[in-house]
């Protein structure tokens, strides 16, 4: 097993999965506040006394992109739940934002908390009395059991085989390097480290690139329907649903807030969000609806931008265009403009609907063929990322250090598969190489 640390910085989403009013990310450990300060725009949390909260922005330190506005609660040891320096980031409840925040924390050096780990730390640091001990233990146990089951679900047989094959390749390479280092005189050829690592790295990159699709396949996606008032968003939603969910009237601005409707496209659970029409307005309620619509688009996995092709082309609103499908609606009416980048759809006749479903599926899950391996479990993603970083380093390093990096990468993969690294390598040195006198 991997050696757990009880002081390093761990992070996890503390609120239940799904969309809520507020989402909380909890961070705890030695240096937690310094780590959080690197993604925080506002009062520096490492300067704040414990028990304070402050308002500010969460930024990706690499891109300077603002992820969300948030409240930050600072706790100083021993006055925190875990008894360690801790922080809580309270964001708007969007799962997408919470995931990004967590991702950035991992990139800054935090590690995903094990099931029950916050509670375990709290207990070990004397934050709970004797009577609570037993219940803590059963809680931890139950959580690990749930996590194990979840991990098993996340680790499909296909993925497990794939990662096994990658570790096999790495074990062979590492055994080769070690045979060469431990038996310098016995004619072992030097290992071709670069040639050995590149295919493994490529495969890890490919697996990681399926992570968003894997998450969507498992947990579903949110699609936002955005467009000018009366562009036909609610009609399209109803057409995709097959029944009337949204109130459709020819009066622009009927959908003042937003509507959510669950549907399924090719087996993928999807929540479609019908937003208020986007236009310049002075109506206070409508205005807040518009802002809300753009916010929803920012957080959605995919945006459908609708423009009525029977009317003059509207000025497009600010949307995340890299994950936006452009739809020319009301294709049954005479066109006022042509743009091949738009898909022509008519909710009345059903023209283009099937093509739209296919494009939605493709945009969400990529070109991956049916049954392709998806990696969805956050812990697996994080472990693969660590393996990736180590292997990239191994490419640059001389043999003895490359061996150490490959060992670390194998440790990361072993967390997914549960194998003992050191014995396995020695085993292979003697299985694969004729060394020893």
């Amino acid at each position, binding site marked *: *097993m*991997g*050696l*757990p*640390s*009880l*002081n*390093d910085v761990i992070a996890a989403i503390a609120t239940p999965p799904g969309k809520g009013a507020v989402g909380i990310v909890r961070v705890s450990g030695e240096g937690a506040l310094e780590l959080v300060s690197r993604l925080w725009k506002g009062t520096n949390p490492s300067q704040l006394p414990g028990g304070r909260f402050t308002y500010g922005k969460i930024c990706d330190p690499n891109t300077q992109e603002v992820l969300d506005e948030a409240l930050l609660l600072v706790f100083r040891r021993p006055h925190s739940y875990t008894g360690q320096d801790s922080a809580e980031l309270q964001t708007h409840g969007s799962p997408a934002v919470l995931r990004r925040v967590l991702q950035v924390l991992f990139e800054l050096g935090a590690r995903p908390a*094990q099931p*029950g780990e916050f509670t*375990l730390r709290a*207990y*070990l640091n004397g934050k709970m009395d*004797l009577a609570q*001990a*037993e219940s*803590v*233990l*059963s809680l*931890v*146990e139950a959580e*690990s059991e749930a996590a194990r089951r979840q991990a098993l679900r996340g680790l499909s047989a296909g993925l497990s085989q794939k990662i096994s094959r990658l570790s096999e390749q790495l074990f062979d390479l590492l055994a080769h390097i*070690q045979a060469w*280092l*431990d*038996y*310098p*005189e*016995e*004619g072992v050829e030097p290992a071709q480290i670069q040639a050995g690592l590149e295919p493994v790295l490529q495969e890890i990159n490919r697996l990681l690139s399926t992570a968003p699709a894997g998450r969507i396949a498992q947990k579903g996606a949110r699609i936002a329907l955005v467009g000018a008032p009366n562009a036909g968003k609610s009609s399209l939603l109803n057409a995709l649903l097959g029944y009337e969910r949204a109130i459709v009237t020819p009066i622009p601005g009927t959908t003042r807030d937003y509507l959510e409707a669950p549907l399924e496209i090719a087996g993928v659970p999807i929540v479609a969000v019908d937003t208020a029409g986007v236009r310049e307005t002075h109506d206070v309620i409508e205005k807040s609806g518009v802002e809300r619509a753009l916010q929803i688009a920012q957080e959605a996995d995919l945006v459908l931008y609708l423009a009525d092709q029977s009317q003059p082309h509207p000025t497009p609103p600010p949307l995340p265009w890299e994950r936006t499908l452009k739809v020319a609606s009301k294709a049954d009416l005479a066109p006022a403009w042509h743009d091949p980048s738009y898909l022509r759809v008519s909710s009345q006749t059903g023209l283009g609907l099937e093509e739209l479903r296919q494009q939605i599926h493709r945009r969400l899950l990529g070109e991956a063929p049916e049954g392709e391996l998806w990696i969805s479990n956050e812990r697996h993603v994080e472990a693969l990322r660590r393996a990736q970083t180590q292997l990239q380093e191994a490419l640059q390093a*001389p*043999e*003895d*250090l490359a*061996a*150490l990096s490959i*060992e670390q990468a194998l440790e990361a993969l072993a967390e997914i598969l549960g194998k*003992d690294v*050191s014995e396995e*390598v*020695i085993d292979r*040195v*003697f299985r694969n190489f*004729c*060394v*020893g*006198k």
Partner: protein
Amino acid sequence: MGAYDVIVVGGGHAGIEAAWAAARLGARVGLVTSNPERIGLMPCNPAVGGPGKSQLVAEVEALGGLMGKLADATAIHTRVLNRSKGPAVQSLRVQVDRDLYALEAQRVLLGHPQIESVRAEVAALWVEQGVLCGVQTVDGRRLPARAVVVASGTFLQGVVWYGRQSRPAGRQGEPPARFLSESLRAVGHRLLRFKTGTPPRIQADSVDYHKLEVVPADDPPETFAGVPGPYATARPTWQTRTTATTHRLIQENLHLSPLYGGDIEGIGPRYCPSIEDKVVRFSDKETHLLFVEPDGLHTTELYLQGFSSSLPPELQVQMVRSLPGFEQAVIQRYAYAVEYDAVDPLELTPGLQSRMLPGLFTAGQLNGTSGYEEAAAQGLLAGLNAARYAMGLEEVQLPRASGYIGVMVDDLVHRGVDEPYRMMTSRVELRLLCRSDNADERMVPLAVAWGLRPAEDLRAVQAKYTRVQNELNRLQRSRIEGVSALQYLRRPEASYEQVLRLIGPPEIPLSKAEAYQVEVRAKYAGYMERQAKLRERLKELEAYRLPVNLDYTQVPSLSKEAVEKLSRVRPHSVAEASRVPGIRDSDITALLVYIAKMPVPVH
């Protein structure tokens, strides 16, 4: 004959270091061997060191042990291996004169006023009412002692095989220890059955050296302890190769081997394969490299490394004569396989004391390891703790993070062995921090605290590393081509020598060893920092101590497998528990919660 503080049974490499370490602490030591003229004998090849093993020798040396000095004094050929492959794996191998080595070991050891040589075969441990009182000899003597170190090598119930013929023997030509196994079993130890082998020895003047490839000795010679011996560059070694004829002879006669014939039940080491094994398992290889090592300066014998065999003697002659240069060769001693009893090291403490009988220590091949260096390192630790036991002091140990000895002992007593254990660099997670070149920094403070070395040695080591740190600070402050000299030195092509040419030497120029430290520490700083972090994590769980008498069945939520394994292994800390095979994260959590619940002991 008075009472001893410590009795050491066996005069091999474990016994030598055990007796020496105990004597350094002031203990009265009785070194019991059936033949004192054979103390320090090298039954396998006459070489010390190599990858993984030279690091052990360096640590033994830093702990005040003898092996490094003995090898240096009697060297006839030295070679640095992996010189260009990085400081963590660089290693020294020294060929020695077999006879000189034994003589030097006897001279140093028996010259110590606290060590007395006793000629006797030990028949049994002398135990009265569960208390260890000493040992009993075959001829009926009782030798009283407070502590006993058994370092009997492969002699316990030893059986030697030549082809499918076997006879009881400890080594070639020597009787086995017939009775001690029973004694160990009687106190509750489980014994394992292991096997190993040796190659044939060849008459030196029957070989045509022109047909062999010469491996010259390094000149100037390198040393383990600093002082090269008078003959350190005196001899080359040679290489030859197996031929198609060799392979055919083996393939056609496999049924004559006790291993392939199924007579030997002992488990052989993977890293010491017989030539039969190599030919069978790697049948795609047309030829195997063999190493021809002289036994000494005036020897008449050559050691044919890589040619271990348990095939019958008459076949060995044909096999040897199929090798280039060996067409007329005469075998002086045939290759043989040996089977022997070993103690299951899971039943030992990290100080190598028996958990069955306080005061009993075991070391070396008896504990399931292979190799002189592995034996010596254990002998030192066992002798040290035996002397401490005799003085009423607490047992000490070398934690895994401290170096190669720590890793080996941790592996032995917490993971156990299913074949003879050999040290390898890949077993050591922190190998970049635990190098031969900084063994002094890691071990001398411990050696001084334990009484294995005088206090002035610590001052010398501290002064050395202060000079190294000062020089690193100076490099940090100096600038070359717009960067600090330290950063400049990190460039792959840069060297400390070159940096000195650019910024000038420090006030007091550094010694060669110190300069090497500066270069290594500058170049590998990033990796070392990362390993230091890993070391901190290792230490963290070391702090969670487990009582040795903990009743694991009372720990809630511990898996059945964990209860069974931990009850057997008896780890001292949660860190040790985490390395026991089969222990899961949830078991560790259960242990942490349970021990946090226990009342804090009053100190």
